[in-house]
């Protein structure tokens, strides 16, 4: 799916974009096949999307969002090519999206949202910059996402959704505040979202299942140390043994 530019598209024939470039790298990392990439080309594509202020555009059309900061940083870290970008500026831009409630939005001034928080906290974790995060303030905002049913929502006064079992949970783990939620209740919520007849997990109990929420449910359960599941790294969203292999080189 690689296009001449060095980036990947979502499917054959689709335009390149940062989103799918990360996915391609993650999939190859899973199978220990990163060597099939032209690492120089891919890294240059990613690095070329960094803007003056440190932010990243998703593609040549210029949409800026902290999601893309995470993607660029995560991709390049997995390829050991982080020095191709200006990490200091990238971190500075992410911090400019930090809000007064401790969370992060997609652009400066945007409301805190669990998905964006995962992206920003993940990027800061990967670049060793978590000391900029007020762990207590953000941790409290995040743990308040757990509602009575035990599920997690993405913002105050919204409905719980299994996908937040990844975004909120991984963020809490990275800043060591996961003990501030009731893990057992969350496990029960995720298990309640299964379709016990046909398999798969949905966003809420009794809704239609899909691959997306199935992944987040399983990943969430792994983070909650549910028995029988492989450990997953909260920053890179890849199994811990894959991350250890890539960074410890054993």
């Amino acid at each position, binding site marked *: 799916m690689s296009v001449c530019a060095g980036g990947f598209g*979502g*499917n054959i*024939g*689709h*335009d390149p974009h940062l989103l799918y470039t990360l*996915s391609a790298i*993650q*999939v190859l990392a899973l199978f220990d096949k990163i060597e099939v990439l032209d690492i120089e080309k891919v890294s240059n594509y990613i690095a070329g999307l960094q803007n003056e202020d440190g932010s990243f555009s998703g593609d040549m*059309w210029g949409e800026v*969002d902290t999601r893309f900061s995470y993607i660029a940083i995560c991709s390049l*870290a997995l390829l050991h090519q982080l020095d191709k970008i200006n990490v200091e500026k990238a971190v500075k831009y992410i911090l400019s999206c930090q809000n*007064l*409630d401790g969370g992060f939005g*997609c*652009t400066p001034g*945007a*409301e805190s*949202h669990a998905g964006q928080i995962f992206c920003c906290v993940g990027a800061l974790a990967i670049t*060793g*910059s978590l*000391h*900029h995060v007020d762990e207590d303030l953000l*941790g*409290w905002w995040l743990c*308040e996402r*757990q509602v009575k049913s035990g599920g997690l929502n993405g913002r*105050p*006064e919204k409905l719980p*959704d299994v996908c937040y079992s*990844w975004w909120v949970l991984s963020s809490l783990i*990275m800043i*060591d505040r*996961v003990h*501030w939620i*009731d893990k057992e209740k969350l496990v029960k919520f995720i298990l309640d979202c299964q379709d016990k007849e*046909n*398999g*798969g997990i*949905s*966003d809420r109990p009794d*809704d*239609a299942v*899909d*691959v*997306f929420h199935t*992944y*987040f449910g*399983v990943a969430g359960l792994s*983070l909650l*140390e549910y028995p029988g599941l492989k450990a997953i790294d*909260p*920053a*890179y*969203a*890849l199994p811990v043994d894959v*991350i*250890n292999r890539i*960074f*410890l080189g*054993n």
Partner: protein
Amino acid sequence: MNQTSGTTVAISLITSGFILPRKGVLSSCQIQITEVGEGRKRYRKMHGISRKTPSQDEQEASDLKAAELRDLQSQFLHLHHNKIYTKEALETSAKLLVVNPEHYTGWNYRKLAVQHFLDHQSETEVDSESIQLVLNEELRVVENALKKNFKSYGAWYHRKWVLSKGHSSMDKELRLLGKFQKLDSRNFHAWNYRRFITMLKKISDEEELQYTTDMIFDNFSNYSAWHNRSVLLSHLFEKRGKGHSHKESILEEEFEFVRNALFTDPDDQSGWFYHLWLLDQMVKLEPLLLSSWPPHGCCLYLSVDDYIGCGNLFPRIHFQSKDRMFPIVLYFSEAVEGVNSSTVTIEYEYYSNDDVIWRPLSANRFGCAQAWLTYLNFPDEVHFLKDSPVKVVVAQFPGIVSTNGVSFSQTSYIEFSLCVPSHDREHTEGQTIPRILWKNEKFHPHITESHDASLLNPLHQLKITEEGKSKSSDWSMKTIANEIAHCRDLLSSTNCKIGKLTLARLLMAQSKLISYCIPNDGVKVHYEEILGLYHDLMELDPVHICYYEDEHSLVLLKQVTLSMESILRYCHQYGDSISPSMDSHFCLRLNDLSLSRIGNVERLLWIQMLDLSHNKIRSIEGLEALQLLSCLNLSNNKICSFAALDPLRMLKSLKVLDISYNEIGAHSVDTRRYLCSFPMTHAVKNDWNFEEFANVGVDLTNHWDAFFIFRGLNLIQLDILGNAVVSDQLKQLLFKLMPSLNWFDGENRN
């Protein structure tokens, strides 16, 4: 379920947030490509769709739709790759985008078409009318797409892109926004777009502030509106600069404004979060120097003996140092950066200030920390010193800044004198080092003698050159007292969890102000009440019990360290005899207090022996400031990984460590991994050295984190049993890393 393939496919979806229609789904999972109706809950294909097995007819209809969509897509891709931008081609793309607004290549294509048209235009003549028509068409397509999914990133961005070409009236955009915000007042795409438009069209912050007021009056539970309000007010505060009184009157108005929301619906969180922000705005104090070691006014006796610590009988403090060095620790009220030899000057006969290097004591070692450390020494030729003065001046100088950006402005200094006795004890080589036994019978309560009352109380000893406390602290005290009263009022009629939490926070903020500001009108801090509130909250909101336990721990430590009398109640003498002697070790025993974390240690910098066993401690962040610590007991706690011990690497005096009966190795998840400088965090000053790895000669695959933590420690006693991670391999590694280890799990290694 085939997990690997599931993860493969699903990972590619994490950040995209949507599914591209594709062939081949997991056998155990059905994707329902159902018709999505209008309305909030059904905005996307994957949320809020009820689960039901489709009938034969429904399945067939669904398959047909999918086939049609695939056809449309391949048609579109053909046009895109061949750069065909005819009217019909554009209609095809519009059709595709209405069905699937997430087809980002479709939006790219339309941008290319517009650019193609504009380039073609500039070749002939500039026909502004036809340009307008083309751009209007784009806006129309966006609107249709948004009707399908008003949370489509691609659609909103396309609109922004079109507007950047200089088109569309502000009224039109605001009307469109109004429509969407009515449908869903929390739609962050709409709010972001609103901020984009107001910036583009230069709408004033004051006008926007009024808009948020209207939205809030319409519905108090509008977190997005409150958030926007806080952003606008922050801008206004910045713009108006240093004028305190104006900010104060605005904050007073805001407190009143939010009070309406809180009293109307105390269980809605939005107002409470905003209230917390207001509180934070109010208590933004300057960073202060809270304490130091050596403490101000003491006489520091240095000796090169081997014995481990002894009693501190102020103003005489004994410190043993084989290498003739002693530390100086500065402890601030919050994390600061910029402590160096220009901002802190040391006047001392035997050391030049220019050679002084200050290090931040923080787990991340990134140039900001609450505690800062340096070492001074006295030269080899000097065998006797009597009352050699040392003065440390922490100056008012642009340089020391808190992480909030507030500058340190209170010049403070610490003065103490240094003594080196001419007769040292016999330096006994090869003496068997006794094992420290943390048993109750070895500890004897400290007998408070009259002179101990004036023991280290650094806060009061610190001389501060008075510049006068700022007037705003008076206003802050008054306002906090006011808010406390209102909060109590609310809680008298409703048992609201977040109201109770706010009251606890207000009381703690009040105590902070009291301890930092000298005038306090005799207001006393009742830590018992705050502790009681947290107990109530543990019952009221058991889901978040560990959060309340953590807060409770911090308040408890504040209470324990309130005065020297209260600290001494927890102090014991370690040894076989009861009478205090030069040889007896002074130990602070904080066991069985349900402590889950450490903090507020500014009055404990002198501690050499600390017993924290039988608590619930998960994190020891905060201990790094206790630079004199040589014996530490963390047994029977909840330490879950070696990474959690990272702060110990900064304690160069640590000799005796007990981490038995914890949970190291019992968890598949390491929650401290990203808070240390491990290889997967690309910390700038990463001192990870792979060659060392190879030289150890032990297989490190399973214990690379233990390697990283223990290679910096030089323990003589370690207890580690009762942790799932313990194995022969680990023991081998530990013995190799710490050759001086004498006692291991109770056994003498010699």
